[in-house]
């Protein structure tokens, strides 16, 4: 069991190495585009696009979505959407190289797949709401925000991780 564990962790980058690489990438992103990395913005753009396509009137009436609709600039035509496509491709390649491609539900042996999926959906839902309210997610607000020394980045980082710590005990069964 223990050797298995070691085998597994070896396949991943040394965390500091990953961190330095990610930092350099973030720096490069700032250097080229003047803004940081992000993820949840792409989901927002997709939602805007989807709603706009399905029910245009509805999207234009919605106070929030209509902020992101303009005639000449299609919501899908967005930096973050393309970045997200890149994330999917990059992660796929990395997973393929290390032999981690596998369709599965990852969960603690103490809980069922169903329970894990319900919690995942709930988490996603909350993250969707929270990322809009907080104007960015862990990568966009917290990581990029911290790198550019934005106060909002530090607030996001502290509140996200702090709250997760506080609630960790309630959810321990899911993970340990």
């Amino acid at each position: 069991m223990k050797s298995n564990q070691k085998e597994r962790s070896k396949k991943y980058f040394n965390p500091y190495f990953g961190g330095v690489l990610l930092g350099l990438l973030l720096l490069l992103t700032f250097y080229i585009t003047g803004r940081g990395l992000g993820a949840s913005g792409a989901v927002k753009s997709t939602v805007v696009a989807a709603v706009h396509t399905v029910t245009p009137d509805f999207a234009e009436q919605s106070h929030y979505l209509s902020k992101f609709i303009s005639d000449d600039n299609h919501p899908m035509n967005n930096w973050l959407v393309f970045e997200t496509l890149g994330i999917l491709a990059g992660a796929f390649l990395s997973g393929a190289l290390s032999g981690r491609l596998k369709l599965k539900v990852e969960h603690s042996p103490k809980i069922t797949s169903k329970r894990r999926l319900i919690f995942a959906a709930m988490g996603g839902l909350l993250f969707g709401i929270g990322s809009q309210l907080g104007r960015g997610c862990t990568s966009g607000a917290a990581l990029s925000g911290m790198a550019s020394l934005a106060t909002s980045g530090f607030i996001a980082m502290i509140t996200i991780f702090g709250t997760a710590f506080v609630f960790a005990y309630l959810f321990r069964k899911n993970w340990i």
Partner: protein
Amino acid sequence: MNLKYSLLAAILVILGFVLLILPAKEQLPETNPEVLQYELNEVTHFISTDKVAERIINQDPTLLLIDVRMADDYLNYSLPGAENIPLKEILHPDWDDLLNQTDRDIVFYSNADVYAEQAWMFARRKGYKKLFVMQGGLNNWFATIIQPTEPPETSSTKEIEAYQFRKAAGIYFCGGQAIVSEVNPQDALVITRKNKKTKVEGGC
């Protein structure tokens, strides 16, 4: 392995420390003398009275006129929409917000272009951008726009067109109703710089 981590940690600390002891850099670095010298020689900072007139008539929102003469002179007569910053106050921090921007083309003018160029020089040295000087100043403004001299009939069509524009502009500035035909729109625009310095919309 532990040694390696200690070394890396040391590198981080040293990098942070070096940054700490480096002399502080100003937010907006002073423009280098050579850059100013270059801009003066290439005369990229001058804008003709014709172009100023056209932009005023078109109510160009990207134009900001700054009168660097004394307040009395400004109150006595100034160009439409001009703000007053007397030359001796040009460095006053009150004006930083107005001058330190990249959205508009700021055009300094005085009676001639000497004081305006001095104001331009100081603001430019402070690192501000998109600054211009109206060539010839108000004296030239009156000589060209308000009371243009008619070119001899032998002059080129371009000159005659320019004269007609000036004449019409002059009528406009005297409160008359005039249909102002534009001069060649291509060269009527001020040197539009390629780099549009917009703050990017970012976020997650």
